[in-house]
């Protein structure tokens, strides 16, 4: 049986020097002592985290610990839920995203999101991918066609759907739908991709396609992914943050966190001794 240590040292983890550079560079996202409330219920406590750019950061932790909540504070999707409050800085490229002069629309254009349950729009495959560029003002048919093809190729879906772009996206399989949602998120050319358990509803083959895709995408995008699958976190991420009960317990290189966790809680969780 494989151990996490062996998995973490798999070739997908980049060389040390690249990671050092990334860690030294300006973090893509930074939260400093951030607290989050659903009404009176505090879901996140004092989260200080720097998410390095152009790499994959995995958020792990037991159910209900606030991973999805943290992810949603980064593109202000929590704004949609009533009576929520964010306290403390959330910086994207060093700029506060909750300041009043920030346009949520352009923030979400820069910070794309893929949900756990694939949520294609009840429209054609083409219109699904073209929706983002369209609402941001792209009315040029030719350029839309190019964007759709490029994004579907990036999401490794092009070959399967190129002959039926006009068909309903609802007719695709679950795995195809999820890759369509990734293509759709890529179409607004975001800088960051937030993924909330993107492969949890997929079969092993589709999962590995999505994983390959994530590894491919990290050349150009900053990816933050929530996952319950330790092997997956070890396979695809360079950095891992371990959350527990609304607190950030440990953050570090995936390799180190899985082989040599500093905190006892982290060790218990990744070795499966947790709860």
């Amino acid at each position, binding site marked *: 049986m494989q151990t996490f240590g062996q998995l973490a040292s798999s070739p997908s983890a980049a060389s040390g020097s690249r990671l050092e550079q990334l860690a030294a560079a300006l973090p893509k996202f930074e939260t400093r002592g951030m607290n989050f409330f659903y009404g009176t219920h505090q879901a996140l406590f004092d989260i200080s985290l720097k998410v390095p750019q152009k790499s994959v950061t995995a958020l792990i932790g037991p159910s209900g610990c606030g991973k999805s909540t943290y992810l949603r504070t980064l593109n202000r999707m929590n704004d949609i839920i009533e009576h929520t409050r964010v306290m403390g800085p959330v910086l994207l490229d060093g700029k506060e995203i909750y300041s009043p002069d920030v346009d949520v629309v352009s923030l979400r*254009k820069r910070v794309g999101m893929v949900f756990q349950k694939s949520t294609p729009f009840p*429209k054609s495959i083409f219109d699904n991918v073209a929706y983002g560029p369209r*609402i941001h003002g792209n009315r040029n048919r030719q350029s839309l066609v190019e964007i759709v093809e490029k994004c579907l190729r990036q999401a490794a879906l092009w070959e399967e759907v190129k002959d039926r772009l006009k068909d309903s996206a609802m007719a695709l399989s679950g795995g195809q739908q999820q890759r369509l949602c990734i293509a759709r998120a890529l179409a607004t050319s975001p800088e960051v991709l937030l993924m909330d358990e993107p492969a949890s509803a997929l079969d092993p083959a589709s999962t590995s396609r999505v994983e390959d895709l994530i590894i491919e995408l990290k050349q150009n995008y900053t990816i933050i992914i929530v996952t319950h699958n330790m092997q997956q976190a070890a396979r695809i991420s360079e950095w891992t943050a371990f959350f527990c009960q609304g607190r950030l317990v440990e953050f570090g290189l995936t390799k180190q966190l899985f082989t040599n966790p500093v905190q006892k809680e982290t060790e218990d969780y990744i070795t499966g001794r947790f709860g």
Partner: protein
Amino acid sequence: MSTVPNQTEPDHSASARQIDSRHSIGKLFEFACWASTWVSLIVLLVLLASVGYQATGWLSWRFVTSLDGVKVQEAGLLAGLVGSFWLVSITALMSVPLGVGAAIYLEEYAKPTLFTRFIRLNIANLAGVPSIVYGILGFTLFVRMFGLPKATYAVSLGFTTFSLQLPLGRSIIAGAMTLTLLSLPVVIIAAQEALRSVPASVRHASYALGASKWQTIWFQVLPAAIPGILTGVILAMSRAIGESAPIAVLGAATYIGYVPGKFKSLSEVVTQPQKLAAAPFDQFTAVPLQIYNWVNEPKQEYQYVAAAGIVVLLAVLLLLNGSAIFIRQHFQKKIRW
């Protein structure tokens, strides 16, 4: 394997009896449901058969395409058909934007305050108000306009001018406005339900791509809700087409020698299309009203004429409901959750 059947037998029969009784209750229930279905079906069939029987010989192409005459043999439904067509078209034109707009506001924008809850409750109540009450309301509000003195305004539409009389009088437009009031609650409720049935995940996915609220509503929620809205609208319209009480209260003409717009025949619509602009302000009659008047005639033959009118009305309703089903299925093929 050998077992001792004697020991288990008493148990067996007890549970068997239980199953038996449960089974017979189930059978009884199924029969009751079956019977109630067939009772309503048979009543409907008897009705249809008797109406159809009475109408034979009277229902003809001439009956449908000619104006009402003085003699029984000259009875015609054209004025009512065209009147009903105008009524329903204008009603749909007014009640769809108003109803869908109100539903969008209530579902998507309005905060759940005491006031909006009060509005919701009242819309549900309004849907149950008897149609004659709407007739009385429409008479005061549109036909007489609270007794406003009569005045005529010349309205120019570029290609034609027509005179607008301001208490609207017993015109199609007054009738359509009344029917709009009547069908608005139904349209609003149907649209609200259709909007509510669009899953939250669609909205979230749209917001996550950077869409604003109106873009999300306009490009995602509304298109996904259209089948439900259309079905509700068509059902409301087929109810409006069959209404006679409010139209009668408004004082629609019982006998009228021309089609709205003062057309003497349908071919004039082609030769003198400019008259169409004045049609909504013209006097009118409607199919259910003509039927009502024929039924009240003492002469026995008029009962058959009425039956023929009923058959035509039923055919129109069937057409509307059929198109509602068609639209729903057509759109649902494209929209699957």
